[in-house]
């Protein structure tokens, strides 16, 4: 347990400190913020490289390449909840990738954001994001991972809504946070369920961790009312978190809208690191995902992994199909990211951790390269994002064109030289040899074809033909241009971006090229590094089994895609911005249907959001009328009783009493008439009475 493992926490904490200092600093100096962020990322990068080297060292002298450091956080009841971090090949690789890409993007964004007035706040958020992402990577405890996961969600919310004056940016950030949170809640339930079943959330705790065999077997034995064992239940719930964060099929709606944020943000968060967190999560809890009981366990795959594969395959195809019909440069790349993430999930599902992760790493590099390239194109075209109004940038922005082409070819998986080819090929090979069904393989292949097609479409739109930027400026209004870019350029003819932006492109391009060779079937260094298996160079692997046919077919597919792209878009240069898309001409309704991404947004708006507003209206109505109504009726009843009582008092009792008194006094008056003061009158009465009395006596004596 040497120094680096014990102090691995430095990697995420340094950017956090940078973020804290630049946030709390009194005078907001740009230089300080930028240098702090980039400095901290640089140090973290060095530390990650050191950790990587340490793992390599361990691997070379055959020791266990997984080291864990746990500490106790707080106590409730009689047990302590403890957190920790872990250094294993997966962590090492991810650390290096995140820090390297992050650093490059930080440098790039210094140039990109120089005209923005809340520059310091941007870097503070970027640093905060980097620390959270690194926290997710090194966490050895599912709860710590979840906490960093939510903070990553927060920073993506803050960064998407960075230009908060734009209502669309504000709405997009809220949408992003809520959609990911919808994914996070089942994840949270999964965590709580896991803790309830296995008693701990630590992944590896020398035997007692939740991912270790004892607790996995325990989970396998626990039945759930829904039929499958609790291991699968928890795995599926955790996968929901991954779906939310990595923009898989049901919850992908937020990713294209997240393009509202500045391009470095899209590059860093919505291409390389954050969206990959979902894939990384699945990779991290792979033992749990892949655990399944049954006879020949190595032959069948667990239901969880099947779900992952199917969701991945659907998303890959879905993303690719939509990307074909987009016009915003960043939305094309966003949907391509969605599709590539689908690939990674499929890779994890069919091939295992190594396959998925290899594509993740290669994708991170070439997709961030593409995004940064797009950024410099937008920067060059003074904020223009619609590809129909670009064109002819080949000559005007040579560096960007060159690096962009490298990224494009890597993404399409151009045979042999580009990293995309090897990593995608691994996935297709694994899918091909998947024993459950061949459908994912075909979906993957078709998606690869579409990927090649839409990327070539984009290339021809942006770099082919002559520039359509000037022609459009007096035409209809610009698409929503980021506020601080539009005017300052003066001459709006596209020009190459400054050095500080093109240098990162230059650095990323070779990596996008060479990285593929680390994982070729002939020399599977990357796979052996992750799976801690022995490494042996043998070129025969290339041809054994179904590897060769798959490789050939995929390269044919790519070439076919590029050809079709050239055929439709390359042959005749696109004349004007208003001209309908060539593909669109073939089948306009289908094209617009795809353009609106299968109207999924509208569908969600109509169903989920509408349900929400209806339910809120109902509960508000319920509150005002039912509960408040009940209280009001009670009060009214009481008031009614009070009024009734008052009525009774005034009319019945009072008046009754008055009447009584009046009758008494009236009768009194009548009686007083009798007492008229005339004595003879009295005598007469006495005499009368005497007569009556004697008559009575006599009459009585008679009978």
């Amino acid at each position, binding site marked *: 347990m040497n120094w680096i493992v014990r102090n691995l926490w430095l990697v995420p904490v340094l950017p956090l400190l940078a973020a804290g200092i630049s946030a709390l600093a009194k005078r907001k100096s740009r230089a300080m913020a930028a240098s702090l962020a980039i400095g901290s990322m640089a140090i973290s990068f060095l530390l990650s490289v050191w950790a990587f080297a340490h793992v390599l060292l361990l691997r070379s002298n055959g020791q266990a390449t997984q080291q864990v450091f746990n500490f106790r956080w707080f106590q409730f009841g009689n047990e302590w909840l403890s957190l920790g971090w872990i250094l294993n090949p997966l962590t090492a690789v991810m650390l290096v990738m995140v820090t390297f890409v992050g650093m490059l993007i930080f440098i790039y964004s210094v140039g990109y954001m120089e005209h923005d007035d809340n520059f310091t706040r941007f870097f503070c958020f970027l640093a905060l994001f980097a620390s959270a992402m690194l926290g997710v990577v090194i966490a050895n405890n599912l709860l710590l991972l979840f906490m960093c996961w939510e903070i990553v969600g927060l920073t993506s919310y803050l960064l998407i809504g960075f230009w908060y004056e734009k209502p669309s940016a504000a709405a997009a950030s809220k949408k992003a946070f809520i959609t990911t949170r919808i994914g996070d809640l089942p994840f949270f339930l999964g965590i709580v369920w896991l803790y309830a079943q296995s008693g701990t959330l630590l992944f590896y705790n020398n035997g007692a961790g939740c991912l270790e065999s004892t607790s996995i077997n325990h989970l396998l034995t626990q039945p759930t009312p829904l039929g499958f064992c609790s291991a699968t239940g928890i795995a599926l719930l955790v996968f929901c978190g991954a779906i939310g964060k990595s923009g898989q099929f049901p919850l992908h709606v937020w990713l294209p809208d997240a393009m509202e944020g500045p391009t470095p943000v899209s590059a860093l968060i919505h291409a390389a690191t954050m969206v990959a967190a979902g894939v990384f999560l699945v990779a991290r809890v792979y033992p749990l995902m892949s655990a399944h009981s049954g006879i020949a366990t190595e032959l069948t795959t667990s239901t969880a992994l099947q779900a992952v594969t199917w969701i991945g395959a659907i998303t890959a195809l879905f993303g690719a199909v939509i990307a074909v019909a987009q016009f915003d440069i960043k939305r094309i790349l966003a949907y391509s990211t969605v599709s590539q993430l689908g690939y990674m999930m499929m890779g994890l599902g069919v091939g295992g951790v190594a396959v998925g992760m290899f594509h993740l790493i290669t994708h991170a590099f070439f997709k961030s390269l593409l995004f940064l390239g797009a950024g410099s194109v937008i920067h060059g075209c003074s904020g223009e994002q619609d590809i129909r109004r670009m064109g002819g940038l080949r000559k005007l922005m040579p560096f960007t064109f060159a690096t962009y082409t490298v990224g494009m070819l890597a993404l399409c998986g151009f045979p042999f030289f580009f990293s995309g080819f090897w990593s995608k090929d691994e996935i297709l090979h694994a899918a091909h040899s998947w024993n459950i069904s061949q459908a994912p393989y075909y979906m993957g292949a078709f998606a690869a074809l579409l990927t090649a097609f839409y990327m070539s479409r984009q290339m021809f739109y942006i770099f082919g033909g002559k520039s359509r930027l000037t022609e459009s400026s007096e035409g209809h209004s610009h698409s929503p241009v980021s506020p601080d870019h539009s005017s300052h350029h003066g001459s709006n003819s596209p020009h190459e971006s400054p050095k500080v932006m093109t240098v990162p492109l230059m650095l990323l391009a070779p990596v996008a090229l060479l990285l593929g060779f680390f994982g070729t079937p002939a020399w599977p260094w990357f796979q052996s590094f992750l799976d801690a298996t022995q490494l042996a160079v043998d070129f025969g692997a290339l041809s054994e089994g179904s590897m060769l046919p798959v490789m050939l077919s995929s390269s044919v597919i790519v070439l076919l895609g590029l050809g079709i792209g050239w055929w439709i878009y390359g042959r005749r240069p696109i004349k004007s911005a208003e001209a309908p898309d060539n593909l669109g001409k073939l089948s306009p309704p289908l094209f617009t249907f795809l353009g609106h991404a299968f109207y999924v947004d509208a569908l969600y708006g109509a169903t989920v959001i509408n349900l929400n507003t209806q339910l809120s209206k109902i509960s508000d109505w319920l509150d005002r009328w039912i509960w408040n109504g009940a209280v009001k009726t009670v009060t009214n009843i009481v008031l009614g009783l009070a009024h009734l009582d008052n009525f009774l008092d005034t009319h019945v009792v009072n008046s009754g009493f008055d009447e009584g008194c009046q009758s008494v006094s009236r009768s009194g008056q009548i009686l007083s008439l009798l007492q008229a003061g005339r004595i*003879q009158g009295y005598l*007469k009465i006495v*005499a*009368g009475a*005497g*007569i009556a009395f*004697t*008559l009575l006596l*006599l009459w009585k004596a008679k009978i």
Partner: protein
Amino acid sequence: MTITFLLLAATTITGTAAAMSLKNLVHCVLALTLGLVSLAALYLQLGAQFVGFTQILVYVGAVAILAAFAIMMTRSAEPAVLTGSSSFRVSGALIALVVFAVLGWAVWSGTGALAVLGPEPEAPVNEIGVALMHRFVLPLEIIGLLLTAALIGAGILAMDETRRTK
């Protein structure tokens, strides 16, 4: 029904009727004394000499004179207005008639059983005195007390206003 009884009865009735109906008050008192004297005679005829003489002594001697005095003293009042409302006088006479009818009917139908004519009872004065002193001593004392109280009361009432209220 002896003649003397009828004769005495007639004088009593006329005396008392005149006393009640004459306008001049003095004539009324005189008629009254006539009536009372004839009544005393009736007592004597019934054999109650002591009562007869007491009657003469008390009623004729004292009460009639007292009435005369009272009339004399209140003569200065306004002339005796006899115009009392006729309905007032008629109703009074009517009631008296009804009373007489009832009593007469009662006497007529009730006394048949007592027609026994016993021997003339003797009422010598010493027996009356003995009876007074033995059986009726308590009423005698009370009457004595009553008479003194009446005497003082009448005196005070009739006394002059100013001296009385000191």
